[in-house]
């Protein structure tokens, strides 16, 4: 029996033949995503239900030296869950149980396949006082996937989502099931520590160090009211100071900036949206009042900051919807294609990034569109350079691809770092990385994954 | 060359000692742990010094114990297997404060006090989350034991506030972690593979941190506290839930002490801050409103006790609790078991703590601090000891031991645990987790020179 058939049969033995496939059509879907990544070969797709199944798959993969790539929603758009060297894609979405909500200590324990949407609706229905930080992604994105790429969302004031992680259960590349965090020493998944912090070994590694099968995520109070304020400027130089002053007020749940060149009337304007929330109209009025004072603290007679008295309902909906429908950008060129470079950068770099971002977009024959997010107390900005493209037009996709490469280069030049870096950005990062740090990274990967089976091709392989 | 001479070669003879008196001081701290002999004390100034010392230690197979303020009280900076104590406090430069991106890049020896005063003087609208510890405690030390400060509830615990690190690995290489590995700016922990966790919570067994980039936060103009009192322990989880739902506090202390008598019940002390008076009044009002639901079972404390609480708990850092407790028995000793527990466990922890205290003839001294926005509680169950009375120290040691076991029993995790308590935790840990820990430690420190005896089962 050929090796392929052997592996296939072993997988069926583990999960049952309903949840294993090597049919070309199935494989096709897993070989590409909504971004510009050119399709890459997949050999098998499996959809496990339990952690024991995951364990068995990993043990098999080690034995047969077959690469594995764990996958959540597949919505990074950067091809992070498309295998580089073929092998097995493990689609985690059947592991979709919400295991426990602890109201007092405000956390939820979920399996790796629980989607953002499922958690959102479950909490709204059963624990309306609590919410989790919701990223601006389609609701099928998984909660765990987003944590592991260090996503951020509606409560970005509290930091990125890996900050909100308490404990995880992970299947190591060598097959052991390993609890990490308080759940390793206690029945309660309430805390990361204070123990030697092993969670970092799985955050930001793009699956190269293990498969997270469960996670415990912090929850936050859900206030009664939520609203937004919108600041407008016509000069990106004003942004750092504006954001700084907004952060100093400590009124914002979330601060996001954006600009887009179409429709025409939006061209040349930067919009800074601030989400506020509270339990009473009194609290909300107070917050509006404080934010109302910010414009006069910024800019000068030539360059003003304006606070919009009335926000068009469509804009409000765009920002306040849970989650906001960011994916609308995929249809901007009526082409179903969308990818973006998210560059984490210090706030003082934002104006330069803005200007040069416009140049790059235009140089590549694209429209400029950005959507940025301020993290925690103004500690950094995720600057998202958005590129919509027409999937049916390879030239268009190539333009977008090139624009992203230029953008990643710009980001690193400014002293920023590409977020959820695709292969090409990973390469650029590694070129700039402290060589000792790179060595350490490789050491860690080798330590956890001696046979190099975990999503190989990522992070320097 | 013998080890002493090699060390002198590296840092100069002014900053190495193997004399009895230095070893005496560095072989013990102010807590209840038995002293453990150090063989050398070294006080480096540069990363290169540290590197050379590490390489020497690897070659000669001499253990190294890095030390910051030495104030964990659980002996984490006191060697278990002898060797070199590396006193990091000469590496005391504040390298950079980036105001716009609100972070400070510091060497490992920068103290809490020095950063606090530097910010007060030069960046008065920014502050860092300062722990309830003497100002000699170092920033890096507090981060690596996953400490918490006065902004715990609003901004998180201190190990979450790190943007980057420079580390000397046990094998001697210097690594940069975080954005500084790739960029000249130390502004971000993400989005690279998160290696930083390998140096947080490991008590120096995986490497020596020589620099850190710490997040700073807006400093409010007004700050005050309220004191609520209750006799009913069972109301605690609900009240904590309600007060955290408001989402308006910087910090929350809960205090229950046998002495003074007015503190014997449960005192809730939320710290509230604001950028102006109106915000402040509004916040105070909303907090006071909470009491309606509790129909007199939780009341507002006013008058001289409220003033006492204000004087004790409002300053940053608060002076009274930790340090003053050391002299309550006029004995210069103070230690506590720090346990992190789910909030619903606090009533049980409280009543069992009182039992243990009384069993050993000690007054109960319970101090709790809420962590992050209401996700867990740090329980500080304290005992004063008279250093000069051997029997007293032994009683306190036993009480601490029993308290640690009780915390683990309720499903909590011990904070900055002394070596025996670390072992207790590891015995309860999933064997796969222990295995993974050991693999990591072995990979980073093949010669097992880094603070050996810690995190071993």
């Amino acid at each position, binding site marked *: 029996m050929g090796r392929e058939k052997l592996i296939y049969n072993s997988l069926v033995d583990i999960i049952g033949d309903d949840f294993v496939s090597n049919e070309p059509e199935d494989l096709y879907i897993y070989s590409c995503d909504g971004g510009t990544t050119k399709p890459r070969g997949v050999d098998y797709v499996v959809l496990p239900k339990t952690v024991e199944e995951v364990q068995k798959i990993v043990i098999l993969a080690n034995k047969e030296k077959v690469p594995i790539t764990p996958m959540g929603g597949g919505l990074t758009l950067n091809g992070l869950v498309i295998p580089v060297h073929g092998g097995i894609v493990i689609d985690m979405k059947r592991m979709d149980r919400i295991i426990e909500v602890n109201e007092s200590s405000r956390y939820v324990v979920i399996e790796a396949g629980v989607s953002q949407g499922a958690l959102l609706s479950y909490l709204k229905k059963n624990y309306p006082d609590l919410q989790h930080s919701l990223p601006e992604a389609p609701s099928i994105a998984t909660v765990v996937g987003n944590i592991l790429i260090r996503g951020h969302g509606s409560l970005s004031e509290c930091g990125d989502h890996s900050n909100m992680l308490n404990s995880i259960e992970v299947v190591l590349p060598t097959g052991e099931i390993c609890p990490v965090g308080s759940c390793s020493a206690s029945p309660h998944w309430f805390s990361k520590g204070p123990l030697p912090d092993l969670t970092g070994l799985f955050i930001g590694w793009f699956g190269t160090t293990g498969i997270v099968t469960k996670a415990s995520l912090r929850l936050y109070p859900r206030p009664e009211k939520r609203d937004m304020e919108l600041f407008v400027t016509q000069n990106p130089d004003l942004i750092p100071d504006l954001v700084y002053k907004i952060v100093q007020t400590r009124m914002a749940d979330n601060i996001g900036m954006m600009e887009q060149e179409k429709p025409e009337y939006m061209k040349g304007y930067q919009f800074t949206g601030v989400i506020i929330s509270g339990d009473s109209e009194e609290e909300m009025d107070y917050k509006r009042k404080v934010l109302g004072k910010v414009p006069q603290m910024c800019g000068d007679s030539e360059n003003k900051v304006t606070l919009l008295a009335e926000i068009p309902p469509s804009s409000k909906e765009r920002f306040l919807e849970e989650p906001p429908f960011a994916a609308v950008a995929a249809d901007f060129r009526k082409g179903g294609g969308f990818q973006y470079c998210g560059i984490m950068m210090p706030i003082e770099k934002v104006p330069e990034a803005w200007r040069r971002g416009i140049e790059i977009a235009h140089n590549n024959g694209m429209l400029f569109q950005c959507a940025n997010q301020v993290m925690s107390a103004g500690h950094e900005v995720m600057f998202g350079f958005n590129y919509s493209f027409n999937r049916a037009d390879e030239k268009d996709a190539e333009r977008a691809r090139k624009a992203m490469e230029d953008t990643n280069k710009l980001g690193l030049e400014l002293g920023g770092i590409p977020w959820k870096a695709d292969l090409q950005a990973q390469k650029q990062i590694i070129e700039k990385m402290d060589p000792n740090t790179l060595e350490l990274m490789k050491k860690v990967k080798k330590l956890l994954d001696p046979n190099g089976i975990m999503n190989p091709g990522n992070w320097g392989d | 060359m013998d080890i002493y001479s090699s060390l002198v070669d590296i840092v100069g003879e002014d900053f190495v000692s193997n004399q009895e008196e230095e070893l*005496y001081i560095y072989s013990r701290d102010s807590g209840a742990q038995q002293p453990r002999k150090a063989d050398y004390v070294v006080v480096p100034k540069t990363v290169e010094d540290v590197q050379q010392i590490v390489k020497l230690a690897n070659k000669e197979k001499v253990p190294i114990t890095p030390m910051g303020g030495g104030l964990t009280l659980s002996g984490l900076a006191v060697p278990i297997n002898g060797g070199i104590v590396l006193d990091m406090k000469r590496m005391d430069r504040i390298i950079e404060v980036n105001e716009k991106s609100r972070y400070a890049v510091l060497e490992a020896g920068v103290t809490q006090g020095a950063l606090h005063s530097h910010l007060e003087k030069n960046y008065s609208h920014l502050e860092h989350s300062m722990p309830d510890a003497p100002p000699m405690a170092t920033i890096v030390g507090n981060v690596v034991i996953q400490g918490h400060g006065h902004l715990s509830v609003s901004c998180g615990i201190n190990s979450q506030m790190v943007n980057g690190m420079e580390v000397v690995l046990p094998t001697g290489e210097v690594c940069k972690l975080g954005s500084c590995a790739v960029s000249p700016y130390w502004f971000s922990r993400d989005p690279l593979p998160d290696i930083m966790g390998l140096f947080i919570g490991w008590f120096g067994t995986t490497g020596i941190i020589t620099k850190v980039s710490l997040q700073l936060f807006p400093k409010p103009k007004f700050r005050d506290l309220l004191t609520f009192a209750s006799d009913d322990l069972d109301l605690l989880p609900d009240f904590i839930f309600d007060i955290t739902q408001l989402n308006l506090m910087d910090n929350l202390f809960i205090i229950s002490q046998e002495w003074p008598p007015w503190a014997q019940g449960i005192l809730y002390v939320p710290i509230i801050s604001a950028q102006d008076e109106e915000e402040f009044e509004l916040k105070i009002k909303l907090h006071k409103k909470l009491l309606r639901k509790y129909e007199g079972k939780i009341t507002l404390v006013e008058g001289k006790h409220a003033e006492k609480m204000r004087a004790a708990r409002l300053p940053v850092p608060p002076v009274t609790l930790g340090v*003053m407790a050391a*002299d309550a028995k006029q004995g210069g000793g103070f230690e506590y078991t720090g346990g992190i527990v789910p909030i619903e466990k606090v009533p049980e922890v409280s009543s069992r703590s009182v039992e243990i205290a009384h069993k050993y003839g000690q007054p109960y001294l319970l101090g709790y601090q809420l962590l992050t926005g209401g996700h867990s509680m740090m329980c500080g169950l304290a005992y004063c000891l008279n250093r000069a009375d051997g029997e007293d120290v032994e009683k306190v040691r036993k009480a601490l031991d029993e308290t640690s076991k009780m915390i683990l029993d309720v499903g909590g995790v011990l904070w900055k645990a002394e070596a025996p308590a670390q072992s207790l935790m590891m015995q309860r840990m999933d064997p796969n987790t222990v295995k993974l820990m050991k693999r990591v430690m072995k990979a980073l420190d093949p010669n097992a020179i880094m603070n050996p005896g810690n995190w071993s089962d």
Partner: protein
Amino acid sequence: MALKDYKDIIHRCFRCGYCKFTSDYSYLGFNCPVYNKVRLESYSPGGMMWLIYAALIKEELKPSKHLSEILYSCTMCRNCSQQCKFQFNEDIVNILKAAREEMVEKQLTPPMVGQFLTNVYDYGNPYREQKQNRDNWAENTEIKQYEKGDEFLYYVGCVGSYDTVSQKAARALGSVLLKSDLSFGILGNREICDGNEVDMLGEKGLFEFLKEENTQTFKELGVKKIVTLSPHSYNALKNNYSNEFEVFHYTQLLRDLIKSNKLDVSGGFKAKVTYHDPCFLGRYNNEYDAPREILTAIPGIELIEMERTKENSFCCGGGCGNFYTDILGSGQNSPSRVRVREAHDTGASILAVSCPVCLMMLEDALKAEGLENELAIKDISEIVNEALL
């Protein structure tokens, strides 16, 4: 008090480290001059307390040469007592003194300390200079010997009498007093060491001897009021001698004379001046104002404060005879060099002092720092002398 009288206190030190700082944890550096230089924990107030307990009370450690080096490195500037948050804070310095007394009994003092003490005993000064030369500094001045009936005894002290730099201050003060029309005189070569350092170094017996000798001399001459050049003398004579004499530090006297127009400083002194509070005038005796009142009364002086000022003043490192024994040693982080740099950073052109020990320590440091072209050290007596019409 003997060390055993403190045995219920010594072990109460928690080694929390507040004692190392200023009151506001200034980032400029630690405010304990010993710890700031040496950086070994044993050389901090807490370290010393713990070692004293271990070696001299519990007898866990054998008292040794190294122990004595540690205990004698302290200049007793009192920052630790000032900053300690505990109820026994005042006793920290006393405990160290009592421990030194035991070290003296055990004959375990560092050699230079032993020499200091022997010299004082044999020569009445630590420099081993001849007694009859003690008032050579006053040659060619009109300063006379004290006679019965003079209002003030001008008590100069060893450093002002013998150290060439500090002699300038001795002369300047003499000159000012002459211009003030006050009746005063010096003891000349009848003057012997006031014993302040001897007391701090733990040689109780010698201190008592000096105290007795001096007191006898004063009484013989009918001295009622004493004005001292040095705050060290001021401290000893005011606090540790009998209460029969009214003791002033010269800045207190000059301040009063200027205020009551008995001294006319309108000649002025044009400079940016920063003032260094000496430990024995400041932290020991709470006198922070008189020197400043003098400086601000002089036209042309722009007074700039250093960051570490008044109770937070950083010791020059000369206390407890260290100006002679040099136990703390030199180097970039020696206290006097640190302080000179701090003064220089204010932009002042003059660093004003009111103590002959500070004067000579800081003058040496100035040279070591190579800052002679940018900063000058002057005693307040010199400044006043120049400002007098």
